[in-house]
């Protein structure tokens, strides 16, 4: 196996981040290379083409489809208002009258003498793309978007729900114990709340009540997560949920202390503006949730060498039973395959567990490097 362990999540006090901000369709870029942008600033705009509303005119008027082009008042490209007369027929010297009115305001997109349909395209809607990250425009992708660059502290979570939010970092709970509801005060409104080892249901409720922008926690119970989003999550593709605040889980499901390094970093950033996104995609092209805090200093820290290679001395998180959630340090990487309790022959690492527990053998696939 070329890669037999999970590369791990990034937790960095200072790194040069580049975020590509791309419109879903071609549009206009509003900023220039080198320009400073705020997180809220609109950097590109597109016109979403209006939806086509169709109406089967032949059926409404009771005529053959082939007659429709001759009956429609106006041609393709002409503007129409909702309710405007689109076509009509009169018969028996005007005694019987049928009419068909436009279902929407827009332009006539097509008129079919084959099917009897007429399509009305609604007006385009503007779509604004924000910078999300305060920084400098490093690159303009003509008609598509920009790349924003910033020196920033960066924390990747393991799972999240909810989309892009912004707010000041506000530390509410301890690293290694569950976050209680009453630990979140009114001052958390609009802020990014940093919790502890588990976001209890009471904490989730309270964060929603005070209007927090986001909540970052070590662990969460699956039952509470489902209650929070209001539906089951079968596959980990998230970010579109209609939730009161964005949730970022840094360690996993159940009660799990936030990794020391992650917690200390977030704690040191209290009061600073953060950009948070809960979007997660655990498929090919993996996307993890993130907390980004742009740093004030203009001097960009040297980009860290993150090779992701497991080596003796690597600090690791154990991510599967029976040591799930424990932290440790790699003390050996035996080359030969080793039989584990399941009777499978796998490549293992020898790990000295932090705290009590001594040294254990763990499949390399069940380790996550802590950067």
């Amino acid at each position, binding site marked *: *196996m*070329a*890669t037999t362990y*999970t590369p791990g999540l990034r937790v960095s006090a200072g790194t040069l981040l580049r975020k590509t901000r791309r419109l879903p*369709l*071609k549009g206009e870029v509003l900023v220039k290379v080198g320009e400073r942008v705020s997180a809220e600033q609109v950097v590109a705009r597109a016109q979403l*083409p209006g*939806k*086509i*509303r*169709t109406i*089967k005119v032949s059926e409404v008027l009771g005529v053959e*489809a082939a007659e429709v082009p001759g009956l429609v008042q106006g041609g393709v490209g002409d503007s129409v208002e909702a309710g405007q007369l689109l076509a009509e027929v009169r018969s028996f010297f005007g005694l019987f009258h049928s009419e068909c009115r436009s279902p929407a305001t827009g332009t006539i997109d*097509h008129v*079919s003498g*084959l*099917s009897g*349909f007429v*399509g009305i395209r609604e007006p385009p809607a503007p779509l604004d793309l924000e910078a999300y990250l305060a920084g400098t425009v490093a690159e303009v992708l003509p008609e598509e978007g920009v790349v924003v660059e910033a020196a920033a502290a960066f924390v990747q979570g*393991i*799972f999240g729900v909810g989309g892009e939010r912004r707010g000041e970092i506000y530390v509410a709970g301890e690293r290694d114990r569950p976050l209680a509801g009453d630990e979140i005060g009114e001052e958390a409104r609009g802020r990014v709340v940093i919790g502890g080892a588990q976001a209890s249901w009471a904490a989730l409720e309270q964060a929603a009540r005070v209007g927090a922008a986001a909540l970052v926690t070590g662990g969460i*119970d*699956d*039952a509470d*997560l489902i209650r929070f989003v209001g539906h*089951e*999550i*079968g*596959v*980990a593709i998230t970010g579109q949920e209609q939730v009161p605040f964005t949730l970022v889980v840094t360690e*996993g*499901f*159940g009660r799990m202390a936030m990794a020391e390094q992650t917690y200390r970093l977030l704690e040191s950033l209290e009061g600073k503006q953060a950009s948070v996104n809960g979007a*997660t995609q*655990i*498929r*090919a*092209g993996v996307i993890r949730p993130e907390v980004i805090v742009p740093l004030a200093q203009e001097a960009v820290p040297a980009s860290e060498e993150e090779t992701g290679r497991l080596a003796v001395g690597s600090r690791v998180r154990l*991510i*599967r*039973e*029976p040591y*799930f959630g424990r932290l440790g340090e790699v003390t050996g990487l035996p080359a030969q395959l080793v039989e*584990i*309790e*399941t*009777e*499978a022959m*796998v490549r293992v690492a020898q790990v000295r567990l932090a705290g009590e527990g001594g040294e254990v053998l*763990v*499949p390399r*696939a*069940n380790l*996550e490097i802590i950067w």
Partner: protein
Amino acid sequence: MSIPESVHTIIATDCGSTTTKAILIEREGDQFRLVARGEAPTTVEAPFDDVTVGVLNAIGELEELTGRSFLEEGRIITPRREGAGTDLYLSTSSAGGGLQMLVAGVVRNMTAESAQRAALGAGAIVIDVLSVDDGRVDYQRVERIRSIRPDMILLSGGTDGGTTSHLLDLAELLRAADPKPRLGAGYELPVIYAGNREAREGVAEILSGRVRLITVDNIRPTLEREHLGPAREAIHRLFLEHVMAQAPGYGKLMGWTSAPIMSTPAAVGEMVQAAARDEGRSVLAVDIGGATTDVFSVFGETFNRTVSANLGMSYSVFNVVVEAGLENIRRWLPAGGPPAGELRDRLRNKMIRPTTVPQTREDLLVEQAVAREAMRLALIQHRQLAVGLRGVQTTRSVGDMFTQEGTGASLVDMMALGLVIGSGGVLSHAPRRHQAAMMLVDAFQPQGVTELAVDSIFMMPQLGVLAQEYPEVSAQVFRRDCLVPLGMVVAPLGQCREGELALAVEAGGKRTEVPGGQIRRIELGVGESLEARLVPGRGLDLGAGRGKELNATLKGGVVGVILDGRGRPLTLPRDEAARQAAMESWLREAGAW
């Protein structure tokens, strides 16, 4: 086509969503054998954006393993020269999410179902099926088409000469939706029209300038006939010309291969059909992956494939919980398993860290329980689609058929089934082959006498594409190096009370009795066989009729012959403690514990 004498070395790769696998096959005397297998992460995404990087890395592993040279200046050396390189290079691919299709037909149970079979058989993932009677109103259909961004659309409906109005309406829906392809903003979405020939011109006029329209023969020219070949060929061709050509690096890869690249499931389907043909019996095959579970079957002359897009062992593991229910997973666990809440959290943690492997026996049992449910559900979906043609007994016009009840019976006959082939990590890499056998038996519940096998290292895709060029070479490697014979399972149909005789097997001068609700196993190795007299319990059926004896040749394998007296359909004890004890006893008897 027989293989030229000059061909000595063949390399084939399968570019999966996450891993690219390369196999090296070489001539040994007058036979071909698997020599080595290498793998590397697939590189269709940033920072590489080029599938060939992963291909070269996987072949680089073959170089390391064999000490030979197959690459030169970032290319595969072909043809072979002075011991370096390969005579043939072939590839399959499911990278980038495979081929995602939307199918549309007039009547859900008829043309839409035929269209679905055509698309699935060509290796596609069907992301939605539109039909005039699908219970949605037009704006909902339009919204749906807009949101899913398929790679390709198959539009069908109506028998030749029938009414055209519903087809024109479907074409209007597509025009209104103005669908955009998933990959590559700059190319036109391919739409294959395979419906009533009378509507061709009208459909072409409506869709003109909006999509790239390709017209092929009707998939249902008459109610009595399904004609999927031309549509499937068009799907294969467009997959290469349009979809694959948009994927990063595929233009280069297509220039390297000695034959067209195939979609992975289409290649596996080729192998399953070849196995059924060569062995002259019905075959059911399952490939349980991380994200999806594919089921293939050949019963009689009919091949079917279905893909359960969100049933799998890693990315989709929690969706199995959602679809099957947690209790249905827990029922396969002996005593000592985690409580319900912890089990949910544990499976969630597998979902977010999908590459981890079970380290404890308890965790292994949990994964194998999930696999049973994923395969059980995938088979249910397969049975629903692998049916005879509906609507053949009456001749009505298409317009009259909305009220017609389905008449198609499932083709999947577990008593007639001759061979079950299991593939995918949880089966191929089960620490004991006995566990793979029990997962297949519990999930599929074969009846009568059925042979079991697993794909040793998942090389059916590569052998499938090889079979397109040189079927005899593919067949040699398939039999000798790909399939691991597990043995057989003998299971009577019907229910038997606990303690009463469910099955007796007389063979080699020995009689083995299996009481109801229990399992026994006869050790019988690979290549060994036994002539046996099989006696079902009272009222039970082994394929010869209720209570009737059967003479059969029992074939051995790495597991042997599992005698399953638990009855069909399989019912588990209601009481939790009794069920847990039964599970442990079954696993022990089968050698899986």
